[in-house]
């Protein structure tokens, strides 16, 4: 044990040990108090959220058997024994899936265009005036904080049921999220080229176009791709409130207990999300590679 390597006299060692224990005890007390506060908050939250462990234990079997049921066909066989029967509605689902991807694509692109138009106003180093900056910032914050599906709920009433409401909801939410990220990229940009261009007598617009944009465009594209990936997930649930895409079909299947349909649609969504994840990841790696080279 450690006593074998002790080189200090016992008295000195005891004093050091004492000091060490005291220091550790103070830290421990702090940690324990923080832990107690956190635990208290958990208990209060548990009462607030009507947590009932008995319900969980009684029905947890249901959760497991739910997956058993969604993986069973009507004939009582496992779904993978008869893929044709499992994916019986694949034509309809693929069409809805394409619609979902299109919704997120169009929404992301519109959002990116708006964020692009607004972000130079909000970045500290390029904004033409503090008032404009303040107003645009608050607007973007609002668009970002209100969840996309809440916008969808309102837009469904204003624009009618259908994918248009979903696209606009995703576009508004993406404008907020991308506007912030874009302006952060601009704030990190090198300002020397801007000074160089301004010294030639160029306008604000030319400064942005020829000095800032070349530095930031790869970052923009990368964040837009990331947002697209997130939006595909978001678009898959837009149908829950009637805003188009595959969500409508899924919510009907879940509510009406069409078990094998639920798993088929979930598998379709998960595979799509995987493929898009991998593709955008590859594209982003390429973009960043390009930026590093330039």
């Amino acid at each position, binding site marked *: 044990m450690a006593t074998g390597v002790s080189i200090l006299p016992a008295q000195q060692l005891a004093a050091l040990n004492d000091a060490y224990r005291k220091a550790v005890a103070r830290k421990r007390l702090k940690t324990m108090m923080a832990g107690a506060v956190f635990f208290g908050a958990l208990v209060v939250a548990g009462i607030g*959220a009507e947590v009932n462990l008995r319900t969980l234990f009684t029905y947890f079997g249901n959760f497991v058997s739910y997956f058993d049921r969604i993986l069973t066909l009507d004939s009582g066989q496992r779904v993978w024994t008869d893929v044709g029967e499992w994916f019986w509605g694949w034509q309809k689902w693929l069409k809805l899936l394409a619609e979902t991807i299109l919704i997120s694509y169009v929404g992301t692109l519109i959002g990116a265009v708006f964020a692009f138009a607004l972000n130079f106003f909000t970045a500290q180093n390029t904004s033409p005036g503090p008032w404009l900056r303040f107003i645009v910032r608050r607007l973007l914050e609002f668009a970002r904080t209100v*969840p996309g599906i809440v916008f969808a709920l309102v837009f469904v009433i204003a624009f009618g049921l*259908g994918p248009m409401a979903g696209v606009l909801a995703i576009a508004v939410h993406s404008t907020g999220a991308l506007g912030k990220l874009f302006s952060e990229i601009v704030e990190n940009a090198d300002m020397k080229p801007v000074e160089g261009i301004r010294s030639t007598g160029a306008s604000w617009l030319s400064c942005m176009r020829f000095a800032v944009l070349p530095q930031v465009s790869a970052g923009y594209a990368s964040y837009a791709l990331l947002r697209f990936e997130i939006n595909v997930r978001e678009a898959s649930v837009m149908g829950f409130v009637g805003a188009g895409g595959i969500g409508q079909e899924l919510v009907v299947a879940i509510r009406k207990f069409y078990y094998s349909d639920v798993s088929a649609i979930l598998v379709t969504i998960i595979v799509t999300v995987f493929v898009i994840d991998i593709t955008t990841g590859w594209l982003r790696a390429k973009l960043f590679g390009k930026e590093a080279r330039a």
Partner: protein
Amino acid sequence: MSQLPKPDPQALRAKYPDVFERPASARLATPLMLLAAFAVLAFGLFDLGFSPSRLVSGLRELGWITLMMIPPDPGSSLPTYLSALGETLSIALLGTTLAACMALPVSLLAARNIIPSAIFRFPVRRFLDSIRGVDTLIWALVWINVVGLGPFAGVLAIAVSDFGAFGKLFSEAIEAADKKQVEGIRASGGSTLHEIRFGLLPQVLPVIAGQVLYYIESNTRSATIIGIVGAGGIGLQLAEQIRVLEWQKVSFLILMILIAVAVIDWISTKLRFAIIGQRAVA
């Protein structure tokens, strides 16, 4: 002032050919890509049923709705809304904590420096990925089928969907940890569990605590929306008021959510700095 000699364009051209005469593929790549992107956009707008007349009438309607939202007014249901907000915050806190507790052991299995065998790591990672591929709202619907309507389903939905995210984030934090401290423990004769407890966790825990705090914040947002499908919280009230077109109440609820999110944001930023500061001292 002395006059600079006039640059000779011809000489410059000869000196820097790759600036003046870029190959067509390099010059046309960006415009072509943008053109393709916007062509798909145009197709999408057409295919999804966008039309100027629908847009204009929808915007007019939206303008009306906005006018009717002013001023925000809860009517007589302020106590209901406050308790719903409390419910939402509870859902976020409990769901995130539960997810973190479940994800910690699993993330160890998904980290390269703990489980070197790819055959074992791969299924764990794919499992976490598939959980993440399913949106929180879908999990909420599934849990409602299991434990019934109410906030408890919301807690479980957030716990499951964050379990996937945390598993990935934690395992990345573990992989980024410094190997030297683990080797030090091993050199003094510690077992694998000792290595994890004394070599790895002290490095990883502050990072994890920061991520958990960030997720509590972002889950406050998620918890507001899972109410839309019936899993409790303020989203339930919001969806109801939108459906019955009580716009003043809707705007009040949205304001409440915005303020709550801002407050949680502020608290968690303070706490995060406190934890990171502690780490710098320790």
